[in-house]
């Protein structure tokens, strides 16, 4: 068995994914997915068409679906042998936002995330809640009920919950769905800051390629349960990659300010179906 290549420079706090297989029911969702180490300190966008295994990959890392792997580790710490509850100490996973009509105040939502597994002492708990609330600017809505908040505000609450325990890996499944542009940019901007300030590994499933291009330093493009392309986002999203993996005719152009944008010109015909 060959060990995954270790990138020189940063080796002990990167997320290592090697030969991950996952079968959901009868469908093979991940087919020996192997990626270069996912580095902390930046946002990594997980991209690909519907059903290529983006969500499954995050859930495998979080421990919510059974998978087999040659290596699933954070630096030297093996994650594969841990249950979801054990992994929660280092990994926080945010599933796709469902509408949860919970009659709980924001403060209670944060207390639950803080106290559910084991309770920190009172002063420490209070300090963390204040810090996270200040970071995400939700301090003035702590007393409001979750079922009265907008989708964007709720997304901030989920983020706050995930950050309370100071995880090392944050996995977010389509956090921008149903958010208006203001909140989309606010969430992505907060993620970028968090990644840098706390040296977090942040993996975000996105469908908006331009959001990925703007906010994610790296991109991991999946196709058919495997990695189709990986690297700095602008490099990974070459027109050929976009054509092969997203089935679109697209180009990257720089706007007047020099910022690259992806412009999609139209769909491409899918290739002849392989045996499934």
């Amino acid at each position, binding site marked *: 068995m060959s060990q995954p290549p270790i990138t020189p420079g940063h080796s002990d706090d990167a997320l290592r994914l090697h030969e991950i297989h996952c079968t959901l029911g009868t469908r093979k969702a991940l087919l020996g997915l192997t990626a270069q180490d996912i580095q902390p300190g930046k946002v990594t966008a997980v991209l690909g068409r519907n059903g290529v295994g983006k969500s499954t990959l995050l859930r495998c890392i979080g421990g*919510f679906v059974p998978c087999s792997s040659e290596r699933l580790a954070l630096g030297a710490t093996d994650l594969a042998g841990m249950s979801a509850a054990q992994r*929660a100490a280092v990994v926080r*996973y945010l599933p796709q936002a469902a509408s949860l009509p919970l009659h709980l105040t924001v403060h*209670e939502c944060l207390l639950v995330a803080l*106290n*559910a597994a084991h309770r920190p002492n009172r002063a420490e708990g209070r300090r963390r809640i204040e810090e996270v609330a200040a970071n995400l600017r939700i301090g003035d809505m*702590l*007393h409001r009920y979750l079922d009265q908040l907008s989708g964007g505000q709720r997304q901030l609450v989920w983020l706050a919950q995930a950050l309370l325990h100071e995880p090392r890996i944050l996995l977010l499944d389509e956090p921008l769905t149903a958010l208006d542009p203001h909140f989309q940019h606010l969430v992505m901007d907060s993620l970028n800051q968090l990644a840098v300030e706390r040296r977090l590994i942040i993996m975000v499933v996105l469908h908006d390629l331009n959001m990925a291009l703007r906010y994610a330093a790296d991109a991991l493009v999946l196709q058919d349960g495997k990695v189709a392309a990986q690297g700095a986002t602008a490099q990974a999203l070459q027109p050929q990659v976009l054509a092969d993996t997203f089935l679109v005719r697209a180009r990257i152009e720089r706007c007047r300010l020099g910022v690259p944008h992806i412009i999609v010109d139209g769909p491409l015909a899918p290739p002849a179906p392989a045996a499934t």
Partner: protein
Amino acid sequence: MSESPSPIVGRQRALRARMLLACGAMILLLLAVDITSGAASLGWNQIWSILFDPRGVGSPEHFIVWQLRLPQALMAVCAGAALGLAGAEMQTVLENPLASPFTLGVSSAAALGAALALVLGLHIPGVPLRYAVGANAFAMALLCSLMLDIAARRLHMAQHGIVLLGIALVFGFNAILALIQLLSDAAALQDLLYWMMGSLGNSGWTETSTLAGLFALVITFSLRHAWKLTALRFGEERAGSFGVDTRKVRRWALLRVSVLAGTVVALVGVIGFVGLVAPHIARRLWGEDHRWYLPASAATGAIIMLAASVLAKQLSTQVEIPVGIVTTLVGIPFFIVVLSRRRRD
């Protein structure tokens, strides 16, 4: 509880505590009303002197108050609280607003267990005869809870599927119960009917203190799991991501539900809808933080049950109407309201 970071949060908490206190006061008031109403007409003054004056010992009035009305009224409190707590935990762990021991068959299963012991003499081996009815009721309640849990988790049955399964279970257990009625003699049939209707009439101090003790024990464990139960409300994966072993929390909660529902059925019979209505009221008024929601649901259940008991006594002084009939009749409209509101969401 951790300190509140803002004055509004602090005020919210104070309000909730006061509402819980108000519930306590209401229970005391209803207890007083319940003790003064009944077939024999006794005034407030008379009751007061019987309760606090030792000279009346031995009189029929003393017997009525001390051996009939007081334990029965307290049984209403305990049974209502137990059902309220059981319903609250069931709605959380099955993620279903229509869950309660009565609607999903747990109570029917327990009644069937009791019937097996009463009529057919089928006991769990090794259990002393005194506790055979209770043990049977508990075992069947647990079996039913596990079936619901397996259907929800393993088979990934959706919310409405669970309710339909529960209704199927109710029908199934009731059919077997009917079969047992057919086979039983007159005396056993009388006992059985009492079980199926739910009545406080046979409650003495032993029964009441048994249930009170069990309830106190169970709610301590429930409250110890309060954070984890609240976390479950965010869904399997979010709760897991908070570090909660969701399967374990579920199993323990269903065990507690079975203990409560099984014991209540063994002692007072099938009481409908208290376990369904109380959690909804508690959730609206106290929110879903289980530190409040669980005790509030228990308190609400106790109030509903006491009110039903008082109402039953007001309806007729000649025949004692089983309290289970009253709660069911009052509960059905509420059930329909909850059901129709769910559909719109």
